[in-house]
């Protein structure tokens, strides 16, 4: 049962919004703990703040987390598995964000496992949502099994989150290989938790090193930022606030997804050349 395709036409549409239906973007990583869910939440918020109609789907069935990061955990009535198994309509499982009325979340089931949903189910759900949104963001579980295949099945674009660490980059490479084998479009890379100071000392893989190794294009460099954790603690993703470096990085990713050409942030802000000169000459304040 598809949602009536004409529904999108009945509402006034600002010029930037998609006329052809949503772009389905899957956020994946291979390795767990690299910041996938936080990244998905923040890109979703950033897109919604840019007036895009966004629905986030938590595909991590059995280990749902996106609801907590989004601060929506108390409002769950139905979940993705309820939709798939016909216990509710798709609309009923969509939680509307209070601050951003164009932002929705479809939570994962917490008490089931990945086999409760199939790749075909995900394609069907995405197709139902497409006419009503600009972006459908899917938060993929860690690993390369069923949950990964579910999350990637409907994707028009795949974003791979990795950290500048050997194990995370290796797993990202595996994911890229699997996507190639499935004939998906070339994925884009988000390098998360980048520590400028360590790169400067030569003690961390740089964005150039990682893109050199993986041979895919970057779509974002997110600096390590403690306020990401504080934001997750309070259920208000950082991208809601202006002024933080990580928040700006998420906003830039959102803009790039919308097709804008945004230059990459200077990584040198914390410890740039001028500051070092100042330090060299006794100046303390950067």
């Amino acid at each position, binding site marked *: 049962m598809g949602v009536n395709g004409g529904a999108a036409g009945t509402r006034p549409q600002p010029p930037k919004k998609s006329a052809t239906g949503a772009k389905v973007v899957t956020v994946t990583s291979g390795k767990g703990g690299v910041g996938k869910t936080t990244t998905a939440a923040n890109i979703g918020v950033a897109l919604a703040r840019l007036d895009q109609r966004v629905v986030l789907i938590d595909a991590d069935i059995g280990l749902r987390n996106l609801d907590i990061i989004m601060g929506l955990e108390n409002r769950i009535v139905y979940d993705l598995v309820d939709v798939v198994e016909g216990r509710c309509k798709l609309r009923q499982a969509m939680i509307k964000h209070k601050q951003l009325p164009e932002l929705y979340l479809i939570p994962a089931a917490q008490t089931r496992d990945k086999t409760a949903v199939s790749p075909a189910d995900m394609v069907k759900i995405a197709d139902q949502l497409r006419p009503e949104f600009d972006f459908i963001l899917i938060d993929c579980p860690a690993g390369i099994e069923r949950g990964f295949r579910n999350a990637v099945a409907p994707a028009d674009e795949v974003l791979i989150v990795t950290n500048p660490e*050997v194990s995370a980059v*290796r797993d990202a490479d595996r994911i890229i*290989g699997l996507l190639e084998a499935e004939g998906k479009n070339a994925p884009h890379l988000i390098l998360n938790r980048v520590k400028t100071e*360590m790169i400067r*000392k*030569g003690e961390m893989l740089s964005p150039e*090193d990682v893109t050199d190794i993986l041979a895919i294009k970057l779509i974002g460099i997110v600096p390590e930022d403690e306020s990401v954790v504080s934001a997750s603690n309070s259920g208000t993703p950082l991208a809601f606030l202006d002024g933080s470096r990580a928040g700006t990085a998420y906003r830039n990713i959102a803009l790039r997804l919308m097709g804008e050409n945004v230059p990459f942030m200077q990584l040198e802000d914390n410890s*740039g*050349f001028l500051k070092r000169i100042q330090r060299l000459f006794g100046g303390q304040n950067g």
Partner: protein
Amino acid sequence: MPSLIDRMLGRTSKTGTGSKAKERLQFILIHDRINLPPERLEAMKAEILQVISKYVSVDSSNVDIALQNRERTPAIVAEIPFNKTVEGDDPDEDEPPKPPKSPLKDAEKKP
């Protein structure tokens, strides 16, 4: 030790663990991508040498057969120098290969 200028510019020598990470990753990923166990890879290299040695005399001490990544496509790149041809041998490519002097002996030198 990085020089004063390097330190002022925020540059450090390439001896940090970052470059070690990159080297290790490049090695790991090449083998991940080709999905061929090391012993099979060695067997393949030996066989390649054997075949070439059937036709020309190979300078087996300077053979270099290695895996390489070109963008995301793994490739096997081989540099197999021949022994200098002795008088009368014609290295012209268009001619059919002459029978080598002792192909198997040469091939066996390189495991």
